[in-house]
């Protein structure tokens, strides 16, 4: 077979462990970018190694009916990221400052600039203060652009739960972005 599926490669790695290297060749770059967006380059490099070693140890539990192992790897990564909340919060705040600066440069109006300087840090705080499970689902959806099915696979949840979790995350963001509580009245 020229190009085995992820499931076939994992199956083969049960007898020939080095066959697991194919999973790395295929997905490491994607997974590394995901980790980098969340915690920055240095922490991401360390986590990448940990993630693939955990995946290797758990390879027996991979559901062979799945076409690609990527959501499974995102899931392991999402769990690992929980131990790096501080790095994640730091990066969010830095990203907020940069987004505000970009925004100001775009508009070149002092009103927009000051709005952005207020708005983006609030978005960062709002994301940071989401419950872990909602933040994980929201960022897989918004940053990694995974469809609901893949978020569900990654977090090992029924798709309905993913939907309600994302709705809760949206509602909470809206709420947190409206300091006076006006946000509660905005219709969906």
């Amino acid at each position: 077979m020229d190009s085995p599926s992820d499931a076939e490669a994992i199956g083969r790695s049960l007898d020939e462990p080095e066959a697991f290297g194919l999973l790395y060749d295929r997905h490491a770059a994607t997974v590394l970018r995901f980790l980098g967006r969340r915690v920055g380059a240095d922490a991401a490099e360390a986590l990448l190694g940990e993630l693939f070693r955990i995946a290797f140890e758990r390879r027996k539990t991979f559901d062979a009916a799945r076409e690609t192992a990527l959501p499974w790897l995102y899931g392991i990564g999402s769990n690992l990221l929980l131990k790096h909340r501080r790095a994640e919060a730091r990066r969010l705040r830095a990203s907020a400052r940069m987004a505000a600066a970009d925004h100001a440069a775009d508009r070149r109006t002092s009103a927009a600039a000051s709005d952005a300087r207020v708005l983006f840090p609030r978005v960062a705080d709002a994301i940071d203060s989401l419950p872990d499970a909602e933040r994980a689902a929201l960022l897989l959806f918004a940053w990694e652009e995974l469809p609901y099915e893949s978020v569900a696979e990654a977090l090992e949840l029924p798709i309905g739960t993913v939907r309600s979790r994302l709705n809760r995350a949206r509602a909470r963001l809206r709420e947190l972005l409206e300091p006076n509580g006006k946000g509660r009245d905005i219709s969906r």
Partner: protein
Amino acid sequence: MKPVDLAKKLRREAAFEPAVLDRGKAALMAAIRQEVQPRRRPTIIPRLPYENVGAALSFLERAFGFREVAAARGVRADGAIDYTMVEFGDGMIGLGAQGAHGAFSPKRAGTASQYITVHVDDIDAHHQRAVASGAEVVSRLHDHLRDYRVYEALDPEGHRWRFLQWLREVPQSERR
């Protein structure tokens, strides 16, 4: 702007050194190779003949705390275990069906021609477990010259096992 779109504005790529992926691959493959490296096997492995290898195996695991080396198991057409190996500490012993290689179980031969010494960390706990599992103790647990604490027991087919724990620090070279 919708909340998800605002969240998207904070998505920012991290800048990686180009070698990160290669380093990661090398580390992963090294970890995989180390993980699956078979334990170095001792250069001498005695093999004990049994009439019923399966029953002997389950007794040795239960009573003496040995662990089967699963990869070593050979099974006959009728499903019975033909041969296998057990390990304990850094030692290893094979169990095989009697008759092969001209060796017979003491149960059939009427006598054993050897006994086996096993060094353990907690002789009292080991003894207790063996007795509770039905091992026939043929030399009671006792201290020998303040050197070591020892007992001997038979397995169900009459192979004789001698378990001992040193009571003081003794260099490997002086042990017996």
